[in-house]
């Protein structure tokens, strides 16, 4: 039995009730208890990844006997690698939280939810069957909704939490139907027998495709792909460490992980693969384009996440599941770094709008270096970690689907553009603040430094484990794509330099003179009207229906009892007509 694989997800979940108990005694003990638990989880995760030798699947006794369901864990290269990555990243984010959340109220709630969030994400990654995965999938969704709405005295935060919950629900329902379909066709949902059944074609093609499409919709909801992406840009209402956790380590990776886990099912069908590619390509370009105009620093990063997740979907769609895994890890590292740096800026200035900042580079050196490294990794500068994964996917796309490869290059231009734009606006130029802020406390700097090192050297570490050796990456890369994406990086950075650093007045004049640019900017700022469309559907269809339903409920005991009596009479009448 591999104890570490059981412990890595059950330890944080078991520790959850102790957080408020300790919080009742002393806040400091509670905070460091959370840090210790997450550090221990990270150690177990790393130990699991180091000692991992062969894949195995283990199960407990029966959980729900009538479904023949067991609590299972799946220990293979993917789950081991991701659990090590998730627990490591979560530890850094929890450590950062100690500094960031200092003096906030409701910290017991915060830390217990964070631990539950981490534990359920690790449980999701380790789950050996679809039902168990779905269980943790829902837990992750609930935790993220509560954490987004953490500042529950702010109406926007409550609304954003509700929105995240409702929008991802559409995906969850699809996944739930898919789980039921698998259960009814195979009689079991564990991944090993699913892969065997796919391998020897014991499921018909149409059923496979139906299951695949439903799973894809589920993954789109969790991983914020167009058109179910609307919750992610609003999710920044939560505290910044929560955003970092959602964007880098836990929530949005769940969808991509699900697709990677059932990749054998997807790879049997051309239709499914091209659907995944299409969804990913649209989100990739959409997210990058919206990030170019967004004015809120955290919103820029949120759109960037949508775009990067799109690249992972494209990677899965063009058939390189390993490339997508690599990008999941590199995106997690550089996005966590970007969010921690953004949180540091937010913590120091209290501002989120990039137009109101500037010149922060002079006083916030570590934050600046962290953010800039993250931007460089995001836009794929070798040898930072983003370069290997993105160019792996782009190179594979070139061999299967040239148009997608071109789109990846195009989105690289946009990525460099928005990344450098944010850097220039926040850290360069003249400050629009009265007084330059001081750097954040060292407990917030430390995670950023560790993440900066891992963004720069992470590819060397990944070389030491069996799933993603550097040799495979180098074999997959091709010079044409690498050259094109480096050119794209230079073009994007150059445009950003001209427009937002050296020729600011000329750019403003250009924008003022051209109605086309203004129109595009406005519609991109609104996210191309998805929110408006959903708002319209909500007020015109859902609200009237709910009004009808609520007017049926009078709240008067007599009337309710009378209705019950009538219903009982009707049942009796039906039974009597059956008998006689």
């Amino acid at each position: 039995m591999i104890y570490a694989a059981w412990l890595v997800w059950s330890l944080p979940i078991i520790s959850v009730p102790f957080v408020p108990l300790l919080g009742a005694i002393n806040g400091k003990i509670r905070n460091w208890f959370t840090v210790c638990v997450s550090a221990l989880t990270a150690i177990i995760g790393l130990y699991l990844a180091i000692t991992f030798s062969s894949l195995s699947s283990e199960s407990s006794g029966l959980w729900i006997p009538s479904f023949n369901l067991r609590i299972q864990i799946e220990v293979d290269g993917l789950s081991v690698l991701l659990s090590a990555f998730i627990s490591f990243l979560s530890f850094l984010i929890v450590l950062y939280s100690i500094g960031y959340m200092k003096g906030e109220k409701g910290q017991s709630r915060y830390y217990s939810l964070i631990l539950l969030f981490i534990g359920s994400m690790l449980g999701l990654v380790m789950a050996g069957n679809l039902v168990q995965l779905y269980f943790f999938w829902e837990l992750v969704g609930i935790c993220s909704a509560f954490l987004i709405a953490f500042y529950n005295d702010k109406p926007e935060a409550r609304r954003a939490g509700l929105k995240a919950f409702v929008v991802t629900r559409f995906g969850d329902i699809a996944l739930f139907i898919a789980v039921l379909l698998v259960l009814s066709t195979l009689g079991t949902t564990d991944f090993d027998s699913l892969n065997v059944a796919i391998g020897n074609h014991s499921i018909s093609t149409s059923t496979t495709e139906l299951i695949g499409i439903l799973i894809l919709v589920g993954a789109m909801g969790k991983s914020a792909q167009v058109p179910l992406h609307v919750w992610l840009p609003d999710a920044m209402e939560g505290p910044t460490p929560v955003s970092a956790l959602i964007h880098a380590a836990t929530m949005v990776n769940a969808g991509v992980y699900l697709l990677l886990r059932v990749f054998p099912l997807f790879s049997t069908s051309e239709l499914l693969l091209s659907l995944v590619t299409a969804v990913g390509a649209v989100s990739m370009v959409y997210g990058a384009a919206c990030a170019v105009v967004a004015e809120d620093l955290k919103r820029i990063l949120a759109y960037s996440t949508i775009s990067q997740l799109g690249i992972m979907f494209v990677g899965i769609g063009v058939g390189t599941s390993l490339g997508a895994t690599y990008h999941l890890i590199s995106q997690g590292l550089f996005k966590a770094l970007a969010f921690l740096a953004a949180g540091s800026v937010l913590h120091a200035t209290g501002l989120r709008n990039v137009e109101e900042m500037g010149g922060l580079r002079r006083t916030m050196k570590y934050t600046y270096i962290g953010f800039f490294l993250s931007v460089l990794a995001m836009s794929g500068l070798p040898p930072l970690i983003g370069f290997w994964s993105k160019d792996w996917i782009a190179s594979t796309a070139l061999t299967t689907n040239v148009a997608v490869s071109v789109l990846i290059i195009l989105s690289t231009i946009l990525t460099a553009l928005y990344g450098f734009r944010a850097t220039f606006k926040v850290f360069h130029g003249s400050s629009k603040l009265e007084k330059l802020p001081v750097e954040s406390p060292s407990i917030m700097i430390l995670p950023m430094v560790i993440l900066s090192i891992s963004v720069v050297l992470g590819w060397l570490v990944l070389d030491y484990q069996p799933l993603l050796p550097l040799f495979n990456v180098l074999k997959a890369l091709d010079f044409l794509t690498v050259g094109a994406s480096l050119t794209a990086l230079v073009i994007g950075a150059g445009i950003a330099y001209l427009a937002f650093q050296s020729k600011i007045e000329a750019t403003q004049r250009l924008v003022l003179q051209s109605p086309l640019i203004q129109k595009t900017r406005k519609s991109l700022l609104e996210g191309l009207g998805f929110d408006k469309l959903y708002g319209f559907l909500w007020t015109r269809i859902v609200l009237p229906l709910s009004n009808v339903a609520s007017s049926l409920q009078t709240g008067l005991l007599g009337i309710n009892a009378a209705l019950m009596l009538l219903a009982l009479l009707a049942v009796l009448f039906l039974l009597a007509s059956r008998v006689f």
Partner: protein
Amino acid sequence: MPSDQVVFIVTAVVLVFLGLASMVYSRNLIKTVMSFQVIVFGANLTLFSSGMGSSQAYMSQTFVLFSIFVGASVEAVALALIVMIHKKYGTLNPWEIRRLRH
């Protein structure tokens, strides 16, 4: 189905209907609780009679015992609520207590 079981079930159905009907007409919350108890007795009777004639009749009898305990505690909570309601509103007529609605 043994014939005395039929008698039990018919009695239970009559009890449930009487309880619901008196709940519709009651203008006093204490009477509402009493009619609620009548419904619970009907349900208990059904549960009790369902084990008749089987070798495991003790199972249903045990459940009925549990149900009676639970019913008693529910009644205690309901009566406590009624005391609070009377303190707060000065009335026990459920048609006049409409604060939850607005």
